[in-house]
């Protein structure tokens, strides 16, 4: 058993609502005046209070990679901010054994007017690196960022890609014993994400401790040895990532908090025939919480008609993408034309044999249309989590860890010809 790297004990954080807003001096003076005379409680929480964290306790051992997952508002960021000493806990304690670096964003403190080189110093100093250390690593940082040609140019003239590369390069050379990372690191283009993940993998292999907060469940599943699930400020799951993720996913699907697809208003619709629910299934039609690369996936689109009418010759359109620019899967009725006459309620299954998507988080957009018009069209109708799997059936995971980029699998073959 390794030594402890972090202990968190009964950590709580309470925000007094109302007190968070920028009170004006006048309100405050008036309030104090009143409280002076009428014995009103000074910290009168008229807006109520909000427990961002409630009695959170856990240990992290040296060399462990811990993922923290949970919905927005579950307390992930608050926990991260307390462990990074940005904000104070209301109760409880955290002990950190070792040199810690927390990255809540890359390029904190970058100044647009300063050159790349100057920003390296500023950013690194802010993250706690001593100057002689920065001097020593400057060359490596510049080299790694691949911005050497522009290193003495103000970063305001950098492309956003260069900017992020430089910022990440500084972060990558911090050399902490304990790394606390927010998921903001996993935004950016594919190449950058790949770099981030590759870097974290190395930190892990070096036996350092990593705490990672992420929405990207496949990343947590692949990178972490353990995951913690937060719900409304409490730890409700702690264990192997696969298991915790399943808990989280079932929570995500059963949660009453999120608006069901049928009730969503952000859709383009005629109001008569609507997509009411989307579920995912495996080849045996069992419901699944996430898909696996290389396995069969069934996307079930449930519909509901609000009028007594048969909608003839409909098409269901399913689009899967990862960003706004490129669709990765686009359904068509050219290959498997079935006349869809929809009536009442029911569902249409969309089969994808041998799912060619790499591990990651994808978005699903669906429409029901006919030749004349779109009856109902919902963007971001569902989220599809894909775990890396053995697409090629070789018994090995491909791509391996460092290459967990975005993309698709294609079946391919090689031929060799020799030119004499």
């Amino acid at each position, binding site marked *: 058993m390794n030594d402890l790297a972090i202990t968190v004990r009964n950590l709580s954080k309470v925000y007094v609502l109302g007190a968070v807003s920028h009170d004006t*001096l006048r309100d405050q003076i008036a309030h104090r005046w009143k409280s002076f005379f009428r014995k009103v409680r000074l910290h009168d929480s008229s807006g109520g209070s909000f427990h961002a964290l409630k009695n959170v306790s856990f240990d992290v051992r040296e060399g462990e990679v811990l993922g923290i997952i949970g919905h927005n508002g579950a307390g992930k960021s608050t926990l991260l901010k307390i462990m990074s000493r940005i*904000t104070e806990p209301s109760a409880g304690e955290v002990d*950190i054994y070792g040199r810690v670096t927390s990255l809540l964003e890359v390029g904190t403190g970058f100044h647009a007017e300063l050159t790349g080189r100057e920003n390296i110093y500023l950013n690194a100093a802010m993250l706690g690196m001593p100057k002689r250390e920065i001097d020593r690593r400057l060359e490596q940082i510049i080299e790694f960022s691949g911005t050497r040609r522009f290193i003495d140019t103000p970063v305001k003239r950098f492309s956003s890609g260069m900017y992020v590369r430089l910022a990440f390069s500084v972060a990558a050379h911090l050399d902490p014993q304990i790394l606390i990372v927010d998921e903001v690191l996993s935004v950016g283009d594919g190449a950058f994400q790949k770099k981030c993940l590759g870097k974290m993998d190395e930190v892990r292999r070096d036996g350092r401790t990593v705490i990672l907060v992420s929405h990207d469940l496949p990343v947590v599943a692949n990178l972490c040895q353990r995951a913690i699930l937060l719900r409304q400020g409490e730890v409700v799951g702690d264990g192997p990532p696969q298991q915790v993720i399943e808990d989280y996913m079932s929570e995500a699907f059963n949660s009453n908090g999120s608006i069901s697809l049928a009730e969503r208003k952000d859709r383009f619709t005629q109001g008569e025939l609507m997509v009411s629910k989307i579920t995912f299934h495996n080849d045996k039609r069992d419901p699944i919480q996430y898909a696996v690369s290389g396995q069969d996936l069934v996307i079930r689109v449930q519909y509901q008609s609000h009028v007594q009418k048969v909608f003839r010759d409909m098409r269901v359109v399913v689009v899967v993408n990862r960003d706004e620019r490129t669709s990765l899967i686009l359904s068509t009725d050219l290959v498997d034309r079935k006349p869809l006459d929809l009536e009442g309620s029911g569902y249409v299954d969309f089969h994808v044999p041998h799912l060619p998507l790499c591990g990651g988080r994808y978005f699903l957009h669906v429409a029901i249309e006919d030749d004349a018009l779109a009856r109902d069209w919902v963007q971001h109708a569902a989220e599809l989590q894909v775990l890396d799997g053995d697409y090629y059936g070789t018994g090995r995971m491909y791509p391996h860890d460092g290459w967990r980029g975005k993309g698709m699998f294609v079946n391919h073959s090689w031929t060799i010809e020799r030119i004499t």
Partner: protein
Amino acid sequence: MHESRGMNLSHLPTVETVKSVREPKVRIRPSQGLFHLDLSTLWQYRELLVFLVWRDIRVRYKQAIIGAGWAVFQPLVAMLLFTAIFSYIAKLPSDGVPYPLFAYAGLLPWNFIAQATSRSGTSLVGESHLISKVYFPRLIIPAAAAATPAVDLLFALIMIIPLMVWYGVTPGWQLLFFPVFVLIALLAALAVSLWFSALHVKFRDVGHIIPFFVQFWMFASPVVYPISLIPDRWRGLYSLNPVVGVVEGFRWTLLGQPAPALSTMIPSLSIVLALFVSGVIFFKHMERTFADVI
């Protein structure tokens, strides 16, 4: 792929882990008591202070044609203006020193304090993105903002040499004490700014108050007029202005004027100290909630 191979950390020296002594390096607790000064952390981050000052200076004079020349130009123009208005028109006395020189020696510390207070007093809100994203002792932010105009002071100081030569004024042994008064000026500005900046996080009103306050403050200080103009019975109260001691000190050390009365210097310098100490306590006390409130 090649890139990620390139960042293998194994060639870097490994950090010695504290395995034998299981003392946590960082202890996070809800703070208790009025405040916790934690000078060691402050010392640890001293380089960041230097970097922030350096950043502000770099940024301020970038893409400006005369760059640091502005630091000289501004007090020089103010001096000419004041000479015209307060000396020629209002016929204010200047205690035997040529008025332009008298005004310039007063403007040096005043401009510094005014600038330092305006910048430092709003500095926390200006750096709110740092406060919510990265940890370091917050005291560094107003301290850096207050120290930055010291560089302007240095440039403006060079200009006083030709002025003194022109008017035939030679400084005496008192010049040795000049750095002390620069330090007191810095302390005075920081003292006021600690209060302002910490309050500004919660009350944005402070941002509106500061410019107005600075304007008022100048006329409450012996910048354009000599302290001898203040009636004796008001002198004690007047000397509670921290700038009074600083301005008097500048004129004494630079222009070789008679030493300022202790009855002026003691209250003025004590108030600097009192404001500074209370400012640090107040700031450290408020610091805990900065990230939540800002």
